């Protein structure tokens, strides 16, 4: 093989390894935030947001992060320029008769218990972000496939959870259990595109995310999951 071919093969191999990186498009670019406060936060914590994206992409591969789903957004139901670090994920999971048999609140409670605490911990691994007074709170949006279709199209159920900074700090600091935390967060439900309004959920400890591993899944070389 000529040197030129070796170089070409190396280039292909390197290009292939770059595919393992999560798309930057999961993050809302700083300049697309609509206020200077939000743009400043997005620039300041760009590395923390990339790490969040990377960790979910490689270590929780059954979660889908859509484009522009990580950033410092303003919750629509709040009047001021309150900026919440927000993350949206879609959960790919097996169809489960038990899960399907629950009502919406039941399914939403199960998803809340399974993912909200874990996502919040991942979102606040940077201590300075957690302590930053400009970060007014945190929101986690979780979607999953409903076991019915609408006109042949799949339908997602979604919950959006909002925790102000004090509420999040109490949970992260161990001063509030997940059940108490759930009672203090605002949760909005959606059935497809239809808003269901605020929903009251029960939450319980669920260590699924810490313990579950996709069978035979091998994280990319150099990736350490924690």
């Amino acid at each position: 093989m000529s040197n030129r071919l070796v170089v070409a093969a190396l280039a292909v191999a390197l290009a292939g390894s770059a595919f393992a990186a999560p798309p930057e498009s999961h993050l809302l670019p700083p300049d697309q935030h609509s206020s200077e406060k939000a743009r400043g936060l997005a620039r300041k914590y760009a590395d923390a947001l990339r790490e969040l994206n990377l960790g979910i992409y490689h270590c929780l591969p059954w979660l889908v992060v859509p484009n522009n789903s990580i950033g410092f957004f303003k919750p629509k139901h709040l009047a001021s320029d309150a900026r919440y670090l927000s993350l949206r994920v879609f959960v790919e999971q097996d169809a489960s008769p038990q899960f399907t048999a629950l009502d919406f609140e039941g399914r939403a409670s199960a998803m809340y218990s399974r993912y909200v605490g874990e996502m919040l911990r991942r979102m606040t691994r940077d201590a300075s972000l957690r302590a930053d007074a400009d970060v007014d709170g945190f929101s986690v949006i979780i979607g999953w496939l409903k076991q019915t279709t609408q006109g042949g199209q799949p339908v997602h159920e979604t919950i959006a959870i909002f925790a102000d900074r004090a509420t999040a700090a109490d949970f992260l600091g161990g001063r509030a259990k997940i059940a108490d935390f759930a009672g203090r967060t605002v949760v909005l439900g959606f059935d497809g595109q239809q808003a269901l309004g605020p929903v009251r959920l029960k939450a319980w400890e669920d260590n699924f995310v810490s313990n579950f591993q996709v069978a035979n899944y091998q994280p990319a070389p150099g990736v350490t999951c924690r």
Partner: protein
Amino acid sequence: MRGTTPRALLLGAALLGATGCATGEEWEVWKSNPAHFASGEHLKFSMKNREGKPAAVSRDDVEHARQQNWFGKAITVRQEEILEQ
């Protein structure tokens, strides 16, 4: 359902192609979504993992499977209904 016939044909063809190359463990890994066999990507996946050996699932495998857009475009709430940029 729109697109059912072509999808069923693809599924059938892929299943025929996959016969004999998917191990029991692969089925366990991928059975969560029967439509995983709706494209040729599964054939590459099966060939990479030899019979009798545990299937090695990489992040790229997950991404390739996902990119086939198995379920079609979903009806879901737009992010703009919840958050403002």
